[in-house]
């Protein structure tokens, strides 16, 4: 059970890292073969673009899991904190509503509206399978939003995005410590 939970917890992260590595390598192979062997591989561009689309939507779900989607929140400073919590929950509810509707739309498009014989230009993959990422990723994203709210309201864990975590760590780090170390660790962007 433990491993299944772990795999599910990091699902998007695994998928995206693999996709990212593959399309970066594909593009590099394309450059090398063009510049050094004067031969351009026809299918790499198409395949890498499709992998990129999958990467983006799973990445968006991953960002939702870390509640990293940008919000404008400076107005929260002037509002009572209970109201802020309520507003945030309300906005997440609206988000879920949007996602559910979009999942319905994209499912309907892929399985009912789409021309079954529509295939990709060079690879000939039915576009149906490529568009399938939309209902899957948006369903997953909805689960992640619910997960973040479950953690917040039931478990009392506030999920913060990695940038905010980093900033908090910086705020806590003491300046004098940094002065002693000649070249502090540069972990700044993760």
């Amino acid at each position: 059970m433990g491993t299944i939970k772990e795999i599910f917890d990091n699902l998007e992260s695994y998928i995206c890292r693999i996709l990212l590595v593959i399309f970066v390598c594909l593009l590099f192979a394309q450059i090398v073969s063009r510049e050094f062997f004067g031969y351009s591989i026809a299918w790499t561009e198409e395949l890498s673009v499709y992998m990129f689309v999958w990467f983006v939507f799973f990445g968006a779900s991953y960002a939702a899991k870390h509640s990293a989607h940008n919000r404008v929140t400076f107005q929260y400073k002037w509002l009572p904190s209970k109201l802020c919590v309520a507003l945030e929950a309300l906005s997440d509810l609206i988000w879920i509503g949007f996602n559910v509707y979009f999942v319905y739309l994209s499912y309907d498009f892929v399985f009912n509206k789409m021309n079954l014989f529509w295939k990709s230009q060079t690879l000939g993959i039915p576009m149906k399978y490529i568009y399938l990422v939309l209902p899957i990723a948006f369903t997953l994203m909805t689960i992640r939003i619910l997960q973040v709210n479950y953690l917040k309201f039931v478990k009392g864990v506030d999920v913060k995005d990695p940038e905010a975590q980093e900033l908090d760590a910086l705020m806590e780090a003491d300046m004098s410590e940094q002065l002693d170390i000649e070249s502090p660790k540069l972990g700044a962007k993760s």
Partner: protein
Amino acid sequence: MTETSIIVILFGSFLGLLIIGAPITVSLGVAALASFLYLDENPIKLVQIAFNSVGSFPLMALPAFILAGALMEAAGISKRLVALAESFAGPVTGGISAATVLACMFFGAISGSGPATTAAVGMLMIPAMVRRGYDKGYASAITASSGGLGIVIPPSIPMVIFGISALGMTVPAEALEKFGSFQSISIPKLFIAGVLPGIVISVSLLILNYVRCKRAGYKGTSEGWSLSTMGSAFRSGFWSILAPLVILGGIYSGFFTPTESAIVAIFYTVFVGVFIHKELKWKDLSRSLETTTWLSGRVLLILFTATVFGRLLVENQIPTMVAESMLGLTQNLYLIWLLIIGFLLFVGMFMETLAAIMILTPVLLPVTYNLGIDPVHFGIVMVCSLSIGFSTPPLGENLFVASGISDTPLEEVTAKAIPFALASTLAVIVIAFVPQISLLLPELLGY
């Protein structure tokens, strides 16, 4: 009548959702969906836009540049570039803080993000400035203010996003009638156009820095320039200096597209990090991939909903209405520029840069077309104006980062950064009034 009510629905629901704190992407998406339903259009279009807005080859430059930047940090390239800038400080008044501006310029040439520039440069330069007796608040302020250069000096992620948003739009027919044809937009052209404006902003920061350091009495070292320090910084930084040359040289010479040059930079960085600096570990690689994942996912999800939103704006002639009301206020091009810059500064204070570009390009670009402004020139002014928002309250990411690094209260850093923001604003106004600053280099290089 429908036109005004569609504006109310579109902007009303968008702003309403923003205020209750919904993610930007959701606010845009729900507002667009509400308008679709109101206009009785088939919302199935959303699905196709979701796929087509993201599935474009030039857009792959975004994750590639983010990944390249993250790897360069892990591979020790960033650190060495900053150390090289530091070695130039020498005996000049305000030398080390001027070196900070310089470091941000170098760093801007490999990174496309403001807070990342501030963090990487600030980690090394703020302690270095404090060691030389600079006030912590001032040291943080100059770093935060020059961090914005990261997105003006190419390669720049905001310029990629502007290019993509602008490429998807056609020039309005009225504008074509009035001004003849417009120059085309391309991402390499935007990259070249950004070089001189980046230098103009840097110079304005450097001048103000000199004046303020002179007043505060921050002198340089008494020994003068140390050739041996500069030499050793150069030797250890040799491979790092090549990184921006590889990226920009490849793009400008036409060997690579921006996406490809970012890909080459990734492999170059991995090679240098593993075999030459021997600093890049598996863990760093995996972390860089993860950072790229969530950053790209969140930005590009906004791109999807912003594209739908933008299309609705254009279909309902909203940019034309904005243009007309602006022209109703004044016919003077300079005053209109000031209005646009003021508006962008205001938006930049509250909204994340990339989101602001994706939302505002469909509104403002047709307006500037109608005024006969070159689209590349406008893009540069837009990116420069928004870059100032990184170092202004209330949402100045660079200020947060710098105050975090130096452990100085945010208010103090902010107060000391405001004069720099004003200097940069002046520089942006100059850039807007003199189109040649942006357009000279692309013209000379035949773009």
